[in-house]
């Protein structure tokens, strides 16, 4: 690999291509467009956590003046359960068809029952009230402990675990060595049980779409998502319209964090638009977002770690129960697969259990499952280090995964940068700074798999010699800026001459989700290969003009130059000149590449957190934070730091305040931003970043995914800091003021074995 270190644009804090539109209010997000003749759609949702739907009568709603269409589950393509899984990525269409519209049973409060389109939003809402639903209300369970009881109400009677109907929809394990043997060698063993609450991704933009279906079935979808191709495929599956007839246009997306990797509204709006013959717009309220989309799982985890007196971990066992919500599919793979991965542990068993319960179906949230697992593991790591009287970072260094370590989930690591993150944390000014009264410091590490997968790019040279790059991934955090830097670097031109566009499903080749920290990794591979093809064409054209061998032409600083034996014989031909001559020299200049990319190595981070606790009010405040991460190569450092800072802020919210609170009727009691309290500006300090760059040898620019790792260590780092401040351990999130006070007033500790 030829890693270029003397870069002009890679590594620069350039202005992002979409920035101007976003600071002037021009950028068009999902709810920002209209179409002529547009009408409005609304969803009738179940008030019950669990109920059989005996019948739905929509006749009164249909008669209301202004109502143009009503749809129920009868209009959605059914994927029968007994026919087996129909997978789209990680989503089973059997669950998706029942999640977008309840079929035989409503499984959570907020589950869609019917949808109406009418000339105004008010009429659509009024019509929803006229729909008569005959429910047989059933017993329900939301919390994991309730859902796994032997006599728990069963959501899906067909689901069996150990031969009996169960809410446990699946189990996976990663195993290495023999833990029974391993624990026998341990001098110190600590085992703890932790719980976390469901938390929402918290994107500020509610789900929205605007959809038109022409009489011939040609469908235009305008919506924001983490993948226009996912929107097209799911809508096609659920409505029966072929993918070739659906043009899904990616609006600017106002945050996703995993929560927009599935559809909620698009199939409903498509069917309403088809029935009514009118474009249909649907926009969720914040309350609908909180009740019926996301969040991630609540969890119950038990982690046991054994180490020898000299600080070597000899065995570890983790059991992670995660709430899937209404349908199977909680992120147990992330919890079981990532949590122990920073460490080289000879004997390991990591198990995950997928538990259905009567709350909304879980959606991906930034490194799905990994922060939940890491919270438990990294808190126990802290206790083991303390029992061994070792510095917690030294304990991690002593057990760190490195090149050649075999992770329990399969891979043998290539050159990785985990040790570098721990060393950088240890050497940071932050880690050495003194602490005041009621202040404490905690550390934690984290790992995320990172994804490769399908990406497509088309790079075209315009007639005036500038560049348009089209890729297929919605840009949430600045990926267009990274792509512009890379393309400009390769072509040797100013980055402002590169326009980066996100294509719709009918204008760019298939590109998988914006998720798994994969976008810049994967799209820069296809953009690089496309640009290299263009450079080859440009060299050939210059060679033809000069009547020399193409091998005797080099591309440098945005122009073709003759090299030996012709060096200096011809004036360089610039990109503009070659573009001007293109019609006579073989035609338009452009290249596209489509690949299923591989080589996305996992990412590691180590965080240092300081808190100060107000023991009268129970408020823990983060007063200093440093996130260290192996970022591979920071193509645009500003947006890499942004990923680190954003992940940390979400983790602090998860640690200290955010949680779904349920009423005794099983409804979400805090479905708004006032009561579901995400961190606001005055809650946080500056969030320092240390970017360790260990380039990914399998990527042309050394890129590693960076977006998800920064959420993984945070809750443990905060919990360990609070322990350090108070001398009391917390085993449940969030560590919100009432819970901090409770622990301060009732001191109890789980004993070490």
């Amino acid at each position, binding site marked *: 690999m030829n890693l270029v270190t003397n870069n002009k644009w890679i590594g620069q804090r350039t202005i992002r291509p979409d*920035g101007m539109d976003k600071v002037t*209010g021009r950028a068009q997000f999902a709810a920002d467009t209209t179409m002529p003749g547009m009408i409005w759609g609304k969803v009738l949702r179940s008030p019950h956590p669990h109920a059989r739907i005996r019948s739905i009568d929509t006749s009164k709603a249909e008669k209301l003046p202004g109502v143009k269409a009503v749809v129920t589950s009868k209009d959605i393509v059914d994927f029968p359960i007994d026919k087996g899984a129909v997978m789209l990525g990680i989503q089973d269409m059997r669950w998706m068809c029942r999640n977008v519209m309840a079929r035989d049973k409503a499984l959570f409060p907020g589950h869609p029952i019917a949808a109406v389109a009418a000339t105004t939003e008010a009429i659509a809402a009024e019509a929803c009230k006229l729909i008569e639903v005959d429910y047989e209300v059933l017993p329900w369970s939301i919390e994991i402990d309730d859902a796994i009881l032997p006599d728990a109400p069963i959501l899906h009677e067909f689901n069996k675990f150990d031969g009996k109907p169960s809410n446990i929809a699946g189990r996976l394990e990663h195993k290495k060595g023999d833990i029974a043997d391993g624990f026998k060698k341990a001098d110190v063993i600590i085992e703890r049980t932790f719980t976390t609450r469901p938390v929402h991704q918290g994107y500020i933009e509610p789900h929205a779409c605007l959809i038109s279906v022409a009489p011939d079935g040609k469908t235009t979808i305008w919506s924001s998502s983490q993948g226009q191709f996912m929107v097209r495929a799911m809508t096609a599956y659920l409505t029966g319209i072929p993918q070739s007839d659906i043009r899904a246009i990616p609006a600017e997306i106002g945050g996703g964090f995993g929560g927009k990797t599935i559809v909620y509204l698009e199939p409903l709006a498509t069917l309403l638009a088809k029935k009514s013959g009118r474009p249909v717009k649907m926009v969720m309220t914040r309350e609908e977002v909180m009740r019926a989309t996301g969040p991630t799982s609540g969890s119950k985890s038990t982690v046991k770690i054994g180490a020898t007196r000299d600080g070597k971990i000899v065995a570890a066992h983790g059991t992670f129960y995660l709430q899937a919500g209404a349908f199977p599919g909680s992120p147990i793979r992330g919890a079981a697969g990532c949590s122990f991965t920073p460490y080289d542990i000879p004997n390991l068993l990591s198990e995950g259990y997928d538990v259905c319960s009567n709350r909304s179906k879980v959606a991906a949230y930034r490194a799905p499952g990994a922060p939940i697992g890491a919270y438990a593991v990294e808190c126990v790591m802290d206790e083991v280090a303390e029992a061994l009287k070792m510095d917690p970072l030294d304990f991690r260094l002593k057990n760190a995964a490195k090149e050649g370590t075999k992770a329990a989930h399969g891979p043998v690591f290539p050159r990785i940068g985990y040790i570098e993150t721990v060393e950088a944390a240890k050497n940071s000014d932050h880690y050495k700074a003194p602490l005041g009264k009621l202040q404490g410091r905690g550390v934690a590490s984290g790992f995320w798999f990172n994804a490769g997968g399908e990406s497509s790019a088309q790079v075209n040279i315009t007639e005036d010699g500038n560049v348009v790059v089209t890729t297929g991934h919605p840009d949430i955090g600045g990926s267009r800026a990274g792509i512009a830097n890379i393309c400009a670097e390769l072509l040797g031109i100013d980055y402002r001459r590169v326009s980066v566009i996100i294509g719709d499903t009918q204008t760019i080749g298939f590109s998988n989700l914006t998720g798994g920290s994969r976008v810049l990794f994967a799209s820069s591979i296809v953009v690089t290969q496309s640009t290299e093809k263009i450079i080859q064409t440009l060299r050939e054209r210059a060679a033809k003009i000069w009547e020399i061998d193409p091998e005797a032409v080099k591309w440098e600083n945005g122009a073709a130059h003759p090299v030996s034996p012709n060096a200096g014989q011809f004036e360089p031909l610039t990109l503009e000149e070659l573009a001007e001559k293109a019609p006579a020299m073989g035609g338009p200049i452009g290249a596209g590449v489509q690949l299923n990319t591989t080589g996305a190595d996992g990412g590691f981070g180590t965080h240092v957190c300081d808190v100060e606790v107000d023991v009268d009010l129970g408020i823990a405040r983060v007063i200093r934070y440093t996130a260290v991460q192996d970022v591979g190569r920071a193509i645009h450092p500003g947006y890499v730091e942004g990923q680190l800072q954003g992940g940390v802020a979400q983790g602090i919210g998860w640690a200290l305040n955010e949680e779904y609170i349920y009423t005794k009727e099983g409804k979400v009691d805090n479905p708004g931003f*006032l009561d579901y309290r995400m961190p606001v500006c005055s809650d946080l300090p500056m969030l320092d970043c240390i970017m360790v760059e260990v380039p990914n040898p399998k990527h042309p620019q050394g890129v590693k995914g960076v977006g998800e790792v920064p959420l993984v260590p945070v809750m443990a780092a905060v919990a360990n800091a609070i322990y350090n401040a108070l001398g009391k351990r917390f085993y449940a999130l969030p560590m919100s003021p009432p819970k901090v006070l409770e622990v301060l007033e009732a001191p109890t500790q789980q004993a070490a074995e």
Partner: protein
Amino acid sequence: MAKVHVTTSINGEPMEFLCEPSDTMLDALRGPLALTGSKEGCASGDCGACSITLDDRLICSCLMLAVEAQDHEIRTIEGMAQGDKLHPLQQKFLEMAALQCGICTSGMLVASDALLKKNPEPSEEEVRFWLAGNLCRCTGYDKIVRAVMETAAEMRAQ
């Protein structure tokens, strides 16, 4: 119910629109006035994505009735740049990567502008508390706070 006719001023221009008596100012901006730079994140005054000024006072347009705009002056994100010249805050947000997805950016900029008009030399704490009504889920606020402070310093120097 008959619509209400409202005469007001938006971004310095005289403006008229029709609205329902129950419409919020945000509904009017995003609907009849087609100014979609102000965003609806919550409709309950908790996220600040719809921040505008009413007679130079920072408000959430989702908490104001559209009819209340009668004879008052409204300013929105669309009026922040002067022609093709960005406001220094807009420029600094771009330079310092103080936005990611951009959904909160309009409100952040309008709120930050209102702060600097009131207090040209805010401390970090003052910036943080002033912007506490504007939620951002992407950035962790670090770069936003830095951009506001740096803009303030540059504007004072001019």
